[in-house]
């Protein structure tokens, strides 16, 4: 007994140090695994509030360029509307226009309050959470293209796993074809991501557009990603449409049919 007390007395600092290190290491490893609740993340009320305050100041500095991008988006949407109006005119008797009851996707607007792009595993924080209907595994996009997937939500904030994260895997395809592959990032350049597993018979040219494939329940089909920059045998380098270091306004996409699709797929497996 005395020996034990002597031992504790002698190594008390070292034991305390080891204990703290184990906690830290546990948090680090926990941060790298999927689908766990995370205590240390920027999507909680303390850090979320600080980042909101900081963002409200710094967003003033970008107002001009943000305005420009909003005008750009408006223009794009107006063009689409006029195109659709024309279509409705033409084929009114044949097509049934989806009513609200059949709507599959809902877009929730929001803002990035913390952006990150210099690490191998990047996470963003947005100011939308469970209160606004945003939960985990939802697509985050802006008018130029995809940004990431939410992975953890609190009441008012959500953490987003950026596409610039080595753990991210996104289903993507060549526009106007049915060939699809998976998109990931090698951690080197923040403007290029890598597309792999495209079938060999697909002809890929530099400058081809890559869009989301719609094979997952997260992203709707046809959201722009980027253009092919370099085409080597194993990997296709894709240049992103988004400048990942200059993001501000985003949309989160809620898929109403997600549960139904998942249930169906699970039922099929059994």
């Amino acid at each position, binding site marked *: 007994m005395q020996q034990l007390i002597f031992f504790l007395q002698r190594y008390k600092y070292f034991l305390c140090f080891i204990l*703290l290190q184990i906690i830290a290491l*546990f948090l*680090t490893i926990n941060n790298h695994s999927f689908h766990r609740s995370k205590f240390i993340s920027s999507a909680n009320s303390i850090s979320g509030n*600080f980042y909101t305050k900081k963002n409200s100041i710094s967003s003033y500095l970008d107002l001009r360029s943000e305005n420009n991008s909003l005008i750009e988006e408006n223009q794009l949407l107006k063009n689409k509307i006029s195109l659709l109006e024309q279509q409705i005119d033409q084929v009114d008797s044949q097509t049934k226009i989806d009513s609200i009851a059949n709507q599959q996707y809902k877009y929730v607007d929001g803002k990035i309050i913390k952006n990150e792009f210099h*690490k191998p595993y990047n996470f963003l924080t947005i100011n939308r959470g469970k209160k606004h209907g945003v939960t985990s595994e939802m697509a985050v996009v802006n008018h130029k293209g995809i940004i990431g997937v939410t992975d953890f939500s609190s009441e008012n904030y959500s*953490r987003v796993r950026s596409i610039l994260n080595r753990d991210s895997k996104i289903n993507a395809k060549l526009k106007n074809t049915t060939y699809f592959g998976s998109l990931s990032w090698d951690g080197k350049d923040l403007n290029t991501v890598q597309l792999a597993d495209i079938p060999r018979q697909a002809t890929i040219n530099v400058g081809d557009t890559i869009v989301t494939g719609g094979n997952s329940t997260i992203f709707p089909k046809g959201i722009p990603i980027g253009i092919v920059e370099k085409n080597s045998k194993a990997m296709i380098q894709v240049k992103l449409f988004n400048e990942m270091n200059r993001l501000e306004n985003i949309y989160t996409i809620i898929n109403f049919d997600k549960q139904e699709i998942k249930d169906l797929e699970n039922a099929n497996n059994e």
Partner: protein
Amino acid sequence: MNKRTFNLLLSFIGLTLLQVLILNNILIFGYVNPYLYIIFIFIFPYKVNRFPILFSAFFLGLFVDLFSDSGGIHTFATTTIAYIRPYFFKTFFQKTEVDYEFFTMSQESFGKVFNFIASLTLIHHFIVFLLINFSFNNFLNVIVNTLLSCIFSLILYFVGNFIFRRKQQL
């Protein structure tokens, strides 16, 4: 709460906010990120009882982690340098625990202080970048990041220290 504790608490909060709101956004050449908050560990009073420094370092790292979504990376690194601080103190300043009471950093020669701070900063940065990378790929990247960030942190620290000291004399 006496004045010294209050000052420490203030610098704890101040350094954390400085790090997460300003310094984490400074990215020179795309990847050089200075970590200045660790000077809290150098200015923490030198005492025989080492529990306060261990726990303060732990929570300092935890707060920085909370803001930068890095799990426990900074916690691990700060606790490590807090633990090895007395051994480096003994080696670089050639002093024992008896001298803790009368020790102030400003009375030591610049060379000794520089060696002490530079070596601890280097260790901290190396651990941080190794854990951020989280794999043995890109090891060269880790080394380059560590060295460049370390140089930048040290420049910031000593320039800041110089300006601060001048102000106090006036």
